[in-house]
């Protein structure tokens, strides 16, 4: 099998170009998923993220991708907003139901400092997994105003001005990172490579 990473294109809000070139840099084969049948042609799925929770879910519904993502059994990596919408529910521009793949809520970061949290920041690995291997001491690029509230599937935390939030999660073959690996230099490329290599070993 040729092993293809599918990047879900859900309309106006995805930064698919950045994600695609980073996966290619990590020697992955990519396919931009524009239509429902293309999900059958890929081995893994990356759900990128630029946009708002509400708009992302609306877009996925409009193009008819909701059901296939909810029932998906292939490894999936959600990036930033892509991680957030894996959750059960989000509270950006009102309450919106998420994909529900991870039991979690997405809420505004509750801190009395500059928001959005923007810039490179370290991760503190609390439960090491295949995609974080070798990256325990690295910094990644964050750009978000909301955080995932979850207690059971955390793989790393990140501290922003004294406040710790969930920076990555995993439940079975569902992975999510709050930061942008495609914008995190070599460390981000390595994380994507780890995801590409999952189950190939």
């Amino acid at each position, binding site marked *: 099998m040729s092993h293809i990473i599918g990047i879900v294109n859900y309309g106006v*809000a995805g*930064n698919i170009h950045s994600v695609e070139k*980073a996966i290619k840099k990590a020697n992955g084969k990519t396919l931009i998923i524009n239509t429902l049948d293309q999900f059958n042609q890929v081995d893994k799925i990356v759900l990128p993220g630029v946009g708002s929770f509400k708009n992302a879910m609306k877009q996925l519904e409009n193009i008819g991708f909701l059901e296939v993502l909810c029932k998906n059994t292939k490894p999936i990596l959600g990036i930033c907003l892509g991680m957030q919408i894996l959750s059960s529910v989000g509270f950006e521009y009102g309450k919106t139901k998420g994909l529900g793949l991870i039991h979690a809520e997405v809420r505004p970061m509750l801190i009395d400092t500059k928001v959005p949290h*923007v*810039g490179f920041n370290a991760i503190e690995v609390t439960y090491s997994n295949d995609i974080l291997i070798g990256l325990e001491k690295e910094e990644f690029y964050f750009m978000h105003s909301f955080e995932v509230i979850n207690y059971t599937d955390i793989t790393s935390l990140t501290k922003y*001005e004294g406040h710790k939030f969930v920076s990555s999660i995993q439940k079975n073959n569902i992975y999510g990172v709050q930061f*942008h690996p495609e914008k995190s230099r070599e460390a*981000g490329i390595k994380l994507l490579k780890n995801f590409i290599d999952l189950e190939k070993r």
Partner: protein
Amino acid sequence: MKTRIIAKLDVKPPYVIKPIHFEGLRKIGLSVDLAKKYYEQGADEVMYIDIVASLYQREILFGEIKKTANELFIPFGVGGGVKTLEDFSKLIYNGADKVAINTYAINENPEIINQAAQIFGNQAVIVNIEAKKWNKYYECYTDCGRVRSGKNVIEWVKEVESRGAGEIFLQCVDNDGRQKGFDIQLSKKVVESVKIPVVIASGAGNLEHIKELIEYSKPSGVAIASLIHYDNFSIKEVKDYLRKNNIEVST
């Protein structure tokens, strides 16, 4: 929080040029080459501003932006001539992570900030400010520091924050390109006026200027251009210097 060090590219496609007081353009090199160079030197972000798009009222040149984004694995902000939600969408599709808007939002339709934030998330919406001092207050300028808008800088940054902007990119017309230091008073005032991150540009002529700005005004990021364009310093040297002076920057 680590202060972000951002390479600012003032572009008249395909060249990065460096104006002084936003005038007198000098060619520095191709935006593609310089973006890559600063990425390799350790920039936290690259900010690309097409400085003539609004002024000449021409379309955004997406091809140049895509080419410039191609070599970058760090965030890429793009501004200049942004007028529609479609511009936001196309820029993001072509590799921008955030989009800066100034002239159109301030002169014609500030509502575009609300709409863009709702679609693209507020982290993707930067408001670019071109501030110029008038007696005791600062006014926002547009069209690359040429046209007065009548808006007070402090009132405008508060307004754009409430409309959903995710970041302020503050440039000072009087200081830009002169390399005589930042306007640290205005910078401090803007940083303290809003809860969203503020990036300060215009004025870095030596390393002390950057240190002074960070210590006094506490911005989220500092944008530098002339200092690195003429190879006086590399971004790595800037970061090493700041680290030595106990200012936190990314590795």
